[in-house]
Structures are given as structure tokens and as C-alpha cells.
């Protein structure tokens, strides 16, 4: 295992990209269950971090790794579905391969370059979001509609920071500056708020508009979230935990897909 060290701010940017990719596959209306679904995982996040910061038992680590593995599978499947069904995009298999290749490449390179890259990618994502918001203000209507695993993705996406944080705890360098994290938290809250108001024009513009640019950025974020998870699981769990995680994760993912198909 590489002795990579990343800063807390780099970690925050990584998580921002991962959450953004997860939000792409969410579909829902503003409702009390959705609000609860958004708030509950945040609270669980804090509890996980508080309890297991740096010293989670092997069983917990394996469970977290399994959870992330399942998340990876869901993101990969959702991404292909999104390209094929929602966008009618021809070479979706090629892109799926590129995403997997990217995830593997990043896993080999280690969490450090991945975290560094997240800062620059986030800058471009912010620029894209601003651009799309401006478009939406000028009433540029979106062309495509998002579809995905409905509310199932939400707990996954919002539980992700805690799981990755616990697994990567030894690699993360704490920083004294808190303001970036407060701003980051506000940004996340805004994203969730907009998600819960899909009928709002501006929100539609941000998450559903500008077909080419935003979806391209989201695809990067998607591949990125796969890589972060893959690296956190592969690079930070022992072989025995990893095997257990893969098994549990596969079962978990299969159950989610099964439930989705049933519904």
C-alpha cells in the first residue's frame, strides 16, 4: 500500500465530485420522505466519523468497503443506463470501459494524485455550474431528462464521505483552516436543496440543462467517484476484508437492483 497523504481540503473536493456524480442518478419530487432521506444520512455520516475515526474494527471497515463497492457498481450501471437510455448515446459501452479503465488507473496511481486532481476538476465543475446557471437564467430549456435509481442513490451518495473518511483516516492531514469546509458544507446544502426542488427553473437548469457540457463534466465526476471508492477500498483494506467487502457489496448491489426492478 502506498503511503499517500492528502489534505482535508483535497478530501473535501474529492467528496464533492463523488456526491455530484451520485446526484445525477437521482429522481424525485419534493416531499417529506425525500427530505428525511437527505437529512438522515448526513446525521449518520457524523455518527460514523465520530465513532470510528481512525480506529474502526475490521468488521466495520469491511462493511464500509462493501457499501462502497456496491456504490461503485450502481454508479457504473446507472452511468451506462443514463448514456444509453436517457441520452440515446451510441458508444456507451466504450465509455463504460473508459470509466472502469480510469478507475483502475487511478487506483494504481494512488489516492494522492487523485486528490490533487480533484481540486482542478472541481474548479472546472464550478465553472460549468456557473455557466449552466447563467444559461438557465436566460431560459435555455434542457433537452434531456435524468432518470436513475430513484431515492436509492441518495443514501449511497450522502453516506459516502463518512465511509471514505473512516477508511482513509490515516492518510488525511488535518488542516487548521475551517472556512473552506464551512463553505463546502453550505454548497452541499444548496445542491441538496436544489435537488429537492426539481420544478424550480434554476435548479432544473443546473442539474438537467446544458446537455453537452454539464453531462460531460458529470461523466468525469462519475468516473472520479468510482476511482475514489476503488482506491479507498483497494488501497486501505487488507486482503481478507477486501474479499468480504466484495462479496457483501455484490449482494448489496444485487439487492438494490432487484428492488429497483420490482418497483
Amino acid at each position, binding site marked *: 500500500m502506498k503511503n499517500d497523504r492528502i*489534505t482535508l*481540503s*483535497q478530501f473535501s473536493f474529492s467528496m464533492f465530485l463523488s456526491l455530484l456524480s451520485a446526484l445525477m442518478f437521482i429522481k424525485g419530487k419534493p416531499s417529506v420522505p425525500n427530505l428525511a432521506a437527505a437529512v438522515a444520512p448526513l446525521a449518520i455520516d457524523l455518527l460514523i466519523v465520530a465513532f470510528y475515526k481512525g480506529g474502526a474494527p475490521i468488521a466495520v471497515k469491511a462493511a464500509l468497503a462493501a457499501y462502497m463497492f456496491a456504490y461503485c457498481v450502481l454508479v457504473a450501471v446507472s452511468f451506462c443506463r443514463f*448514456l444509453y437510455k436517457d441520452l440515446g*448515446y*451510441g*458508444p456507451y459501452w*466504450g*465509455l463504460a470501459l*473508459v*470509466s472502469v*479503465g*480510469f478507475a483502475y*488507473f*487511478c487506483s494504481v*496511481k*494512488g489516492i*494522492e*494524485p*487523485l486528490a*490533487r*486532481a480533484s*481540486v*482542478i*476538476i472541481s474548479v472546472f465543475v464550478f465553472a460549468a455550474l456557473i455557466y449552466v446557471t447563467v444559461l438557465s437564467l436566460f431560459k435555455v430549456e434542457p*433537452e434531456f431528462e435524468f432518470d436513475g435509481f430513484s431515492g436509492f442513490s441518495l443514501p449511497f451518495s450522502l453516506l459516502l464521505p463518512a465511509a471514505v473518511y473512516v477508511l482513509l483516516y490515516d492518510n488525511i492531514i488535518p488542516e487548521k483552516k475551517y472556512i473552506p469546509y464551512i463553505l463546502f458544507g453550505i454548497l452541499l446544502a444548496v445542491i441538496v436543496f436544489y435537488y429537492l426542488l426539481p420544478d424550480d427553473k434554476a435548479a432544473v437548469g443546473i442539474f438537467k440543462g446544458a*446537455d*453537452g*457540457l454539464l*453531462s*460531460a*463534466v458529470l*461523466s*468525469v465526476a462519475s*468516473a*472520479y467517484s468510482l*476511482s475514489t471508492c476503488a482506491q479507498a477500498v483497494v488501497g486501505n483494506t487488507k486482503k481478507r476484508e477486501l474479499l468480504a467487502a466484495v462479496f457483501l457489496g455484490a449482494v448489496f448491489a444485487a439487492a438494490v437492483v432487484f428492488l429497483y426492478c420490482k418497483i
Partner: protein
Amino acid sequence: MNISLKENINTLKTKTSGSADFTVRELRLRNGESVAIITTEGMSDKESLAISVVNPMLGCDPKKKRGEELFDYLVENVLSAGEVIPVDTLVDALRFSMSGFAVLMVDQSLRMLAIGVQGYSHRSVSEPESELVQRGSREGFTEASRINMTLIRRRMKTPDLVFETMTVGSVSKTELVLVYLEKKATKSSVDEVRKRLKACDIKTVLGSGYLVPYLEDSGKNEVFTGVGITERPDTLCGKLTEGRIGIIVDGTPSVLVIPHLFVENFQSVDDYSNRPYFAAIIRILKYISYFAAVLFPGIYIALVNFHPDYFPKELLKNIRESIDHTPLPLILEVLVIDFIYEVMRESGLRLPKVLGHAVSIVGALVIGDCAINAGIIGAPTLMSVAIAAICSYVIPDLYPQVTVLRLSFIVVGGMLGIFGVASLSAVVLVFMCSKSTLGVVYMSPLTPFSQRHMRDVFVRLGWKKLSKYEMNVQNLKGGSAYEK
């Protein structure tokens, strides 16, 4: 080494296989003792040799001194050369003579002396063609390492400036000069560079580029390089003040600088001579040009093939018409144009200047204009490649990387659309972020972000502000691997 002068001379002749340029001048002193001076034809200055070595020895009277006693007498009382280096082995004697020294051998003595009378012909100092500046020095490095050392010393009259010589190449025995500022470059970094160069097992070093893979942290030939190259002494001096280490390779005017950051590719000497606001505009222009050079044809082909609705209607109509009238698929068309452009560039570069102009005319008029009129290629497609080509000239240091990446983005954009372009961008970015040289991250100070060091990245602050904080590359975040 043998005590007999004759034996030693015979051994050297055998070692050089009777090479025509191996010269032995045997002298008999007044007391009848034999000495020999070994030189290599064309490497030594004959006038200096005669004045400081041959004439004094023929004129001296060593009385009954012989062997070691005679050797000491000649060194202390007779030779008037300014530079003398003791030599112990015949291999070293040959190396010194082939570097332009005259090697003195005395019969019945086991010691030798290399006398500095170098005088080989070399190109005079001239303006480097690859790094032209509007306001700044017109001097560039030459092939002779000693002259390059002088060019640096003239600009840095400080005892901190250290030159260290060493040789690489088991066959070529190429002389290298490590140059650094002792108070700026960390000892561990210098030790690491020295170690890597000593471990270099290459047989022949004919250019500075031969050593680059040996200096990289990864040791691989990657797309981006953490070792910079400059032909300008003022640029090198600027880098040295930031804690970098220079490597002068004898026989080439390109000096290596290590470590080298991504942002340095967008800096030039003129930036520091011009007003800060103008320098900032030029810098930002360079960054935009870099992205355009790499991405423009790839994004163009991706949008035309997969997302045509992204174009304004009138423009889309023109593009569609042009594509409909050309026989090749768009991806192939872009690749063919890019290929032709690279061929023309390469031929223009290697040919004499007069013929180079002819190639440009043929390229622009015959291939460009006629191919469009004949309907072989489309004007918008040609324009997209041409814009990328022109933009790539703005950042010449990154030309090889831009060429490779542009081709990759054309293929990915043509096959996978804008998603493919975005994904490949992320791969390239992670790859760049994973790179480091001497422990200094290639992408710093962009990431790991350092606000302090950003004052000379996208914009250059005025000298009054810039001089308040001394930049040292080893102080960048993540750059401490070889510091302790």
C-alpha cells in the same frame, strides 16, 4: 602504470589503437632525462602548450634530478600553466588528454600531471533560436561547457554558486557540470541528482536529452517531463535562485534544469521585463492556447459527430454542407489533415530555410486551398486543425506533449464524443498530478495549492511585491521528499 616512460607510452598507444589524433611529444631535458607530453590533436592550444610547458622545460636545468624528484622540480619551478591536476592512472591520463589537457609523464616516476591548455574550436556565443526574447540578453549557451560556466558566473557573482564536474557514458566519457546555489538547493536534492547521474549506465551521451529518463522520479519515459531544458543563461540563473539544479552537458547548448514544474512552460524571460499587466495577459493567452491546441480538434469532432445541436443553426448548416461534400468520415479527415500538417512542419524544420519557405507555400496553397476546392477536405475541419496548430506554437516547450495529446483527443472525441474527451481529460490530469521530480509535485503550486506561490503563475505581480518573498521550489507543498 609502469615506472618506465617507454612502457607507459606503448600502453597508451595500444589503448588508443594507434589513433591518428593521439599525440606524444617526447623531450630530452638538459640533464638527459626523458619526459613526454601527451595531447590529443585539435583539443589543445598549441601556443599555450609551447609557452607554458614545452619552452620552460627545454630551457630549465634540473641538474641531477630524476624520477619523482624531477617531477616535483618541474611542477614547482618550471611549468607556468595556471591549471595543473595530479593524475594517477593511465585511464585518467587518456581522459584528460581527450578533454584538451596536456599530460606530463616523467621517466622513472609513477605520477602524472594534467596541464590545462585546452584550446579546441567551438561555436561563439550567439542568440538561441528556440528561446527568442524581445527585451533581454542575446546570449545563449554554446556547446563548450566551460564557456557556459563563464556565462553563468558572469551573472551570478556569488560564492554560493557551485560548479561540480563529473563524467557519464562509459564510452563517450561526456563531461557534466552540476550547477546550483548552495544556500538555495537542499543538500539532499543535490545528493540525489548526483546519485542518479552516477547510476546512469548509458554508454554514449551525445545530448542532454539522453539523461532525462535517468533524472525523473519514475525513471520512465512519460508524456510530461519533470526535467526542464533551457538555452539561456539568464533563464538558468533565475531557476537557480529558486533552488533548482542545472546540469550542463558538454557538447550541447541545452542545459537541463531540475525540478521542472508544469507552470514553468508558460513563463518566459520577457514576462519579467514587461509590465505586469501585459505579462498577465500573455500568460493567460498561453494557457488558453494550450487548451485550444490540445482540445480544439477533439471537441470539434465530438460535437459534430455526437452533439450537433450544440452549434448555432447557421454554423451547423455550413459544417454539415462541408461534411456532406467530402468523401472521408470526419475522424479520418481530421487525422489526415493533422498528419499532413505534422509532415509539413517536420520537413520545414529539417530543410534549409530557403526550402522551408517553399514547403510552407506548397502546404498553404497547393494542399490547403486546392484540397478544399477539390472537395477532399472541408474548410471548417481544416480550420479547426489550423487553429490548434497555431496555438501550439505559443507554448513551444510543450509541443511534443501537445501533439500526442491532440491526436489522442481526436481519436477519443471521434469515437466516444464529448464524454470521451472529458474522461480522457481527467485521466491526463490525474497522470499529471501523480508526477513529481525530486519530490516536488509537477502540478504545484496549482495542486497542491499554494497561494503564496501563485503570484507568478497566471499573473505576475510587480517586482516590488514579487521580491518581498523569495520563491524556493523546495518550499512548495508536497515538495519535501528529499529535503530531510
